[in-house]
């Protein structure tokens, strides 16, 4: 599974993308974020507060309780601020 990070999520994690292979217990986007916190202090800091996170699965915005299913690309980021 390909992960993408943007804005301060990217900065805190220290990388814009990485490949992961989460265990079966990781069913939703929220599960994934929680599981990722164990990877580094940066991950832990970036992903600690789910209320500040938004996500896209295969390039579509989704709620954090969305099942990962057969997702190939998951992105985690703060609320968008374009325009």
């Amino acid at each position, binding site marked *: 599974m390909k992960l993408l990070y943007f804005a301060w999520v990217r900065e805190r994690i220290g990388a814009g993308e990485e490949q992961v292979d989460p265990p079966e217990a990781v069913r939703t986007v929220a599960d994934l974020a929680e599981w990722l916190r164990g990877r580094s202090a940066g991950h832990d800091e970036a992903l600690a507060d789910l209320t500040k996170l938004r996500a*896209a699965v295969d390039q579509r915005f989704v709620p954090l309780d969305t099942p990962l299913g057969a997702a190939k690309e998951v992105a985690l980021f703060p*609320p968008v601020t*374009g325009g």
Partner: protein
Amino acid sequence: MIRVSVDHAPIDIGTELAGVEETGAGAVASFTGIVRGDDGVTCLELEHYPGMTESALCDLAEQALARWSLLSAVIVHRVGPMTPGDRVVFIATAASHRQAALEACAYLIDRLKTDAPFWKREQRGEAASWVDARPGDHQAAARWTAQSAPD
């Protein structure tokens, strides 16, 4: 006609508007968002999600064309570093009559603010900070749709 562009280059409004007018429209509405320097911002950097951004903007344009009788919709968003006075975003809509063009233009900028993956970082001298999302943007987007985007 739909045209969507996400680019580091400055936005050339004259060219974009001329393209929209060529469709034979009777009414063209446009919106330009510009970097403000009035609160000490010296640089604004726009990050985005390549690939998803373009498809999100195309989706918005298609939704506008489905909802109003538009001849064309153009969405141009700049990314990368900018300074006060630079154009960040340009939207133009063309229709036979003014109401469709004006409403669709307002719709597109309201929806773009909440439904496209861009992130702004402001720099004030040496200090940089990511811009917080504005709750008002979600209210503005929600007035166009029953199904609101995640806030």
